[in-house]
Structure formats: C-alpha cells, structure tokens
C-alpha cells in the first residue's frame, strides 16, 4: 500500500510529525523499533511508576498520535531503505523495509534520534559499564538500578539526572565525575533562562545529590574501570573508588544512517552533536521528499523535537500539494535555545580522545585499538571509509555507532586535519544487523526472475 508520508522513528519528533501529517489529511505511517512510541526521553514505562513531567509530556504526545489516525507500526526493526534517489529513474517512492513490514511512501520524514557517545578508556568493555542514556532507560522505564555502588561519569545534564534517579530508586552513588568545570555549567545554565521548568528540575536533582552527600569531582574523568570479568572499582584520575557499576557518557550523536544511505548532503557541526543532514528552515534535506526532524537532525532536546517534527510534516504536506496551516519556525527556535545550551555541554571533548591509551580498544566489536587506528592513518588511511578497509574499525555488529566518534577524532588528529575532513562511513543497507533467513523469507528458486542473456 502506498502512503503519502512515512515517518521513521517514534520519539517526540516522529510522534508530532505523524500527528501533524495525519491531521493534514495525508495517509501517514509511523515505524518505531521499540514496542511503544515515546522515544528515549519519553519512553513509555513498562510498569506504573513514579509520575514525572517527562512521562506526562510523553503521554500527551502518544494520545495525540493515537487520535490522529496515523497508522503506527511498533516493533519495526527497519533494516532496508530503497527508492527515492537510490532508483535511477527519476523520483520514485521511498521504500522502507522492516522485519515483518514494508512501507512505500511519497515522502519520508526521518526522526531517528541519537545514540550515545562514549569515549573509550581502559576497562570500558567490562560488564557493569553502561551508558548514561542506557541508565536512564533502566531507571525510568524498567525501574532497575544499574548496581549497588555506582559511579556516574561523563558530561552533560544526564550525569545529574542519572545520579538523582539512582538515589531516588534506593541506590548509592559513590561519585559523580564531571568533565566540565563549574564555570562551564554556570555559562550553560544561563542559556536555560527561558526554561524555568528545566532549571527547576536540574535544581531538584542537585538538591537530592547534595542531600545524599555524593562526592562530585569537577573537571575530572574516569581513567580506568578495574575488575576481572566484572567491574569492581573505578580509577578517577589518581584515586580508586570501589564500585559495581559505572554509568558513563560523553554526549549524544545524531543517528544519521538513513540520511547517509539516501546520500543526502551532511555537514559536521559540533554544536549539533557532529554530522547532521543539511536542512532548510522547514527541515527539507538535499534529497527531494526526504525530511529530518528531532535530535537526529541536530541536538536540541526532547522539548524542541515536536516542533521540528511539525515543521517537517507541514513541509511534506505542502510539497505533496496539500495546504497545511502556516508553519511556526519561531516556536521551534524558542524551544531549541535551551537545548542548544545543553548540546554545548555534550559536545565532543578532544582532550578525552587524546587521553585514550594506545592499547585500548576503540572499536570493541572488532577489537581495533587506538594504536591500530593510528598505524592505519600513518599507512595512508585518510577517511573513515578507508579506515574501515585498513582495520575493520566500525565493521562489527554495532556498525560503527559505538566507535565512530572516537575513531574519526583519532584519525583526524593523527592526519592533522579537522574531523570534518575524514568524513563518515557511507550509509548502507542493512541499517541494523538482521539474519539472512528473516529477510529472505520463503521463496522457490524457480520463482526468481532471470533476465534474458545479452545477445552475443
């Protein structure tokens, strides 16, 4: 069945885009990988748990989506992208293949969110080491503590959100290790002046952390996770602290696999989280019919995401010949301002990359160390695609999502060029690892069309 507008990703941007598109009269379908729309910040909890502002915001977006008439396919593991600019004959519909579903649409809005950046350090592959965003999912959606004695480390607002949630859930935070100085925080918080609600939430986290007397190390970093088969201590610069879990994250990275696969133009902008698709003011990419919204098009936070989703949907409606109500880019700009301050706190810190020891695995899927990456750079690898060919860095099951940020920063530094100059790995199907039998399905060899041989 042909849809007018398909939306990839059911976070706040995707939910708002689908709602807007369906309200505008378009045949709309939303594909979401998890079992319910919501995304990471507004993830639907699996159990009744403590009420909070994010939960209410998520419920409101979910309710609007449900009423809009948009078709919603959850549990959709999207692995294949086709059509659009990938077809030689002019402008073809976009084809999105998921396990168990295939969707064709005249317009495609990407709302694929972010994944976490973790700059490697010795011991980061030990069980018990997990991301900050991962910890928020465990704590808020699942109600599970990552450990009994937890070190929370890295950068950005998630540090304090995770620490406060662990304490609220009955766990013990033995240390907070913040890469930023208090001065950096003071400047960033000034950017939140227009969002007293967000500031108040941050202050409540801070109060809980102070009340629990958690030691906070500023301008500090985790230099090693220690343990045999499982983390049992964390080295923080010179000091060793016993811990059975380490939640660590160094910011968020826009997930641009889909726009890369469609060969849209991208630009490297550290203030937006790294590589992002080039967009016009109404969220059009350089590929006709392809739009991008939410944090996947540049970090501006969950509060701003629905506005960019609406903008993208209205642009798609207009481009399909429908006339929606006028867009309101100002609403997005206002909401994005607070997000920009926090995105700045989550930008890649070159000093953390510089501190990676030579024998530390950067690509944990393929076991590629910093030294191996630098050897490849010296031997002539000048781009991320060439680094893959030289070392297999980024060719394992995570497809470069975990190592790409650190690897490109290492490669660029070794080559003496800006990060933008080493590019990114070309986007390719499959977008997610899938087993051959699940994508092939049942067929008879006799049914495979064989073209007539070329005349000799």
């Amino acid at each position: 069945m042909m849809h007018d507008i398909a939306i990839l990703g059911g976070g706040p941007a995707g939910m708002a885009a689908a709602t807007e598109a369906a309200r505008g009269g378009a045949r709309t379908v939303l594909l979401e990988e998890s079992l319910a729309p919501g995304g990471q910040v507004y993830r639907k909890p699996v159990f009744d748990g403590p009420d909070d502002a994010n939960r209410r915001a998520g419920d409101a977006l979910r309710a609007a989506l449900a009423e809009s008439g948009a078709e919603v396919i959850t549990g959709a593991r999207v692995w294949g992208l086709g059509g659009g600019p990938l077809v030689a004959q002019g402008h073809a519909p976009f084809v999105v293949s998921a396990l168990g579903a295939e969707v064709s649409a005249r317009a495609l809005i990407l709302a694929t969110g972010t994944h976490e950046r973790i700059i490697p350090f010795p011991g980061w592959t030990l069980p018990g080491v997990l991301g900050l965003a991962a910890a928020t999912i465990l704590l808020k959606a699942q109600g599970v503590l990552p450990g009994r004695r937890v070190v929370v480390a890295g950068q950005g607002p998630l540090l304090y959100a995770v620490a406060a949630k662990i304490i609220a859930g009955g766990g013990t935070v033995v240390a907070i290790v913040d890469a930023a100085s208090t001065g950096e925080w003071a400047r960033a918080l000034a950017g939140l002046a227009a969002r007293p609600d967000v500031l108040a939430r941050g202050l409540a986290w801070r109060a809980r952390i102070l009340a629990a007397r958690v030691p906070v190390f500023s301008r500090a970093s985790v230099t090693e996770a220690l343990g045999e088969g499982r983390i049992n201590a964390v080295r923080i610069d010179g000091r060793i602290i016993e811990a059975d879990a380490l939640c660590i994250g160094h910011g968020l990275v826009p997930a641009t696999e889909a726009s890369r696969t469609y060969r849209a133009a991208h630009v490297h902008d550290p203030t937006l989280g790294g590589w992002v698709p080039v967009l016009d003011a109404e969220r059009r990419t350089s590929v006709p019919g392809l739009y991008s919204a939410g944090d996947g098009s540049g970090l501006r936070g969950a509060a701003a995401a629905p506005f960019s989703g609406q903008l993208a949907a209205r642009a798609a409606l207009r481009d399909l010949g429908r006339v929606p109500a006028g867009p309101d880019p100002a609403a997005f700009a206002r909401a994005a301002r607070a997000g920009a301050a926090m995105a700045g706190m989550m930008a890649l810190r070159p000093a953390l990359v510089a501190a990676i020891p030579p024998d530390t695995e950067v690509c944990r899927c393929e076991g590629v160390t910093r030294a191996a990456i630098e050897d490849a750079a010296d031997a002539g690898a000048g781009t991320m695609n060439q680094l893959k060919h030289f070392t297999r860095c980024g060719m394992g099951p995570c497809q470069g999502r975990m190592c790409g940020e650190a690897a490109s920063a290492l490669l660029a530094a070794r080559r003496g060029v800006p990060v933008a100059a080493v590019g990114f790995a070309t986007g390719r199907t499959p977008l997610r690892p899938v087993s051959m039998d699940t994508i092939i399905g049942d067929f008879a060899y006799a049914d495979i069309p064989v073209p007539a041989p070329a005349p000799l």
Partner: protein
Amino acid sequence: MRAADASSARNGERLAAGASIAMVGGMSLRSTGFTRNPPIAITAFGREVAAHPGESLAAALVAAEVREFVAVCHMGVCQQCLVRVDGRLVQACLTPVAAGMVVT
C-alpha cells in the same frame, strides 16, 4: 528465589502474586515505587532468574546480576547484549521477558 517457587515456575507457570524472592547479597536492584506484574521464572546461563512480565530481558538480567552478559546502550544500538533465547540470537534490550525463556 526459593527453590520451590523456581521449580513450580520452571514449566512457564507464573509464580503466585507476591511470591517471595530472596535477594542474594541484600537489597534488590529493582527500585521501589513501581507496581510490577507478578514474577515469572526464566533460565539464564543455567541459573533460575526471576523476572517481571513487561521487563526487557536485559533489565531482568541486570537486576539478577547475571555476569555473563554486557549491555551498554539498552536501546538497540550497541549489539553488546546479544544472547540466544531458545536458540535464536536476539538483543536482550529489545526482547521482553517471557515465562520459561532459556537464555544462553
């Protein structure tokens, strides 16, 4: 988990609501303030583990302090939590628990 509870749940039966689950080493890693479904039993790396329907397999394994597995992102990205469930390779973070599941 008490041995009697574990054996009654081994065939996929639900444990009685409120069945006691003894915690190894003191406190539970499941935080307070959540209303959970009654526990079921799964088998993970040869050992009986309690889980609550609705939880992701990764969360249940973290809560049970199963050391044979790593989960880094809990959102389907990192592929570190790949396990076999009843022989089939899955991401534990995207797989809801089900009674009688055998994780290897």
